[in-house]
């Protein structure tokens, strides 16, 4: 009996992951991330990876909404910020513990997503992009207008996630594994949704909305569903990251949090679901551990004069250039490009064999 299940799991793995090189890469990266803290315990690296995990969730939720259904959101920071802030407000005013606030926060995220999704059904394309982009900006202005209620200047402190007995290192490790588990679970759930029947309907909305409507698909329902799922995971990521940082500030609505998920998704491949995961780790790897040493190596005196922050800024500029090149050369993402190329090669080989 169990052999049968193992066999089935293996077949599923082989067809879904092993046969597609970029997915295999993503899978290996998963394993590497899981065992990394066992080999080397560096708190800085752990903290950065924890953050990268959360950004990965945000990016995947963005990819499901934009890459699959084609509803352009340029304001995913809204979900992130709503996640962090609603948990913080619940803690501040009611003193609720994390295990209560996190699910409620996710519900709030869904509520907000549906709340903005219903009116946004009327606007399309660039108009939708603008409305979503301006929402977080409007919220930030609002937070600063009532600074005493929202503690806009100092931020709201959040309770510690772990008991004090965990210690400093222990809580970092626990943070890391919690974020890793959340990332893995969210990624698998979103991947499952994207490959299910619902996911196929999502893609039909992207390809031809009119045709899907004509086929009897309830377009409104599926659009809202995509918004809701995206809001659920986006607010989860923001909320948990709020707990990790133990505070919620208006910077949680910052435009950079709307743009970074887009950048990493473009890097990994839009509409692939696993692409943004890989992209977000590559982004943080490049940002912290690849660009600064290269800059120090090429231009030591310049690097010394600008300091680490300046080196990271230069690195970010290089990263942006890379993303622009990727997005203009391969608009559907690097992963798609590789898969297509491999398919072409395979086809060419088969044709060659026949001859």
């Amino acid at each position, binding site marked *: 009996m169990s052999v049968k299940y193992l066999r089935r799991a293996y077949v599923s793995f082989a067809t879904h992951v092993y046969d597609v090189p970029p997915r295999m890469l993503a899978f290996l990266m998963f394993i590497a991330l899981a065992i990394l803290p066992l080999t080397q315990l560096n708190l800085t690296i752990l903290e950065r990876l924890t953050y990268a995990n959360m950004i990965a969730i945000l990016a995947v939720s963005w990819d499901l909404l*934009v890459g699959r259904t*084609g509803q*352009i959101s*340029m304001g995913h920071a809204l979900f992130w910020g709503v996640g962090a802030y609603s948990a913080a407000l619940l803690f501040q005013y009611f003193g609720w513990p994390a295990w209560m606030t996190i699910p409620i926060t996710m519900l709030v995220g869904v509520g907000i997503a549906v709340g903005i999704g219903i*009116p946004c059904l*009327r*606007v*399309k*394309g*660039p*108009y939708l*992009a*603008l*409305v979503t*982009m*301006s*929402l977080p*900006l*409007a*919220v*930030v*202005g*609002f937070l*600063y*207008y009532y600074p005493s209620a929202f503690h806009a200047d100092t931020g709201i402190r959040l309770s510690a996630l772990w008991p004090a007995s965990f210690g400093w290192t222990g809580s970092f490790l626990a943070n890391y594994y919690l974020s890793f588990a959340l990332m893995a679970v969210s990624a698998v759930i979103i991947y499952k949704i994207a490959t299910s029947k619902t996911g196929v309907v999502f893609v039909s909305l992207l390809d031809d909305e009119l045709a899907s409507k004509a086929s009897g698909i309830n377009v409104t329902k599926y659009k809202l569903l995509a918004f809701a799922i995206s809001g659920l995971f986006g607010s989860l990521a923001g909320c948990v990251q709020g707990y990790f940082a133990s505070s919620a500030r208006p910077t949680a609505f910052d*435009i950079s949090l709307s*743009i970074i998920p*887009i*950048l990493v998704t*473009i890097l990994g491949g*839009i509409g692939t679901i696993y692409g943004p995961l890989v992209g977000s780790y590559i982004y943080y790897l490049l940002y912290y551990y690849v660009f600064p040493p290269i800059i120090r190596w090429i231009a030591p005196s310049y690097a010394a004069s600008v300091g680490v922050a*300046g080196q990271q*800024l*230069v690195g*970010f*500029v290089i990263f*942006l*250039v890379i*993303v*622009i090149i990727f*997005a*203009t*050369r391969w*608009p559907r993402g690097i992963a798609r490009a590789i898969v297509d190329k491999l398919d072409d090669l395979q086809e060419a080989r088969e044709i060659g064999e026949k001859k």
Partner: protein
Amino acid sequence: MLLEEIIILGTVTSLVYALLALGFTLIYGVSGVINLAHGALVMVGAYIFGALVGFFPSLFPAGFSHVAVVVLAVILTTILTGIIGSIFYRLTLHSILGDQIATLVVSITGCMLFAQLIWLVFGATLTARFPVNLFPGYRTLLGVTVLNDQTLGAVVSIILFVSLSIFIAKSRTGMAMKALSQDIEAAMLMGISVEGMYMLTSAIAGAIASIAGVFIASIAGAASGDMWLSALSISFSVVILGGLGNIKGTIVGAVIFGYSVEAITLLGGGGLVASFPFIVLIIVLLIRPKGLFGKHVEME
């Protein structure tokens, strides 16, 4: 008193906002490209102008008139920013024409890129301010204090609007742009170079953006590292309010936006200025999803 303030300052602000959005709407009207890098070009213009004005006095003999320096700097700024905008368009957005998601993503990335480059070159941070001054001083009109730069900005805005409308309506190049906005294939058959026209449009839009940037920065007293975002959101909102690609609609959008901002500020809601325009925008879009003036009206 309050009413006069709202009317005069609202008019001036509206005209400056219209100037800010003009380049954006021009590009969309001609090529259908939503170039979010417009916000960054505004900032690029302001910084280039500031650098030139800071650099020029060492070049010219003492006693060289301030007006001449400013005019020279503005001309150089518009040329440089126009070239930058045009090259950016050709290198990035031209190859993904028609792909809306990619265009939005690439242009917002380009926007970030320009902003970061400026931070690098000018050692700026988000809060550091880079002094930009055209003509310091102010005048009083009906008891309302108006900065010289605001007046000049409003006048320049009107001049640019009128001349651009005439350019599009009368000149050969302008008519070619209009033709492209109506039917690309027919325009190509008539021997119009799509690439060249789109690059020219981007250059004109970049030049106008830089002028707007100079005025915006000068009215605020300085250019800052985050002005691209406000410039982008203002111009995007104005354009959307009036309907994308519709030059007349842009003026109406700017008027609504400018007056509402000034009214809110003067009525004491200073803190809400950051969010109120967006609320107006969201409400308008929800009532009329394609802006106040319907969709993509033919360029006029």
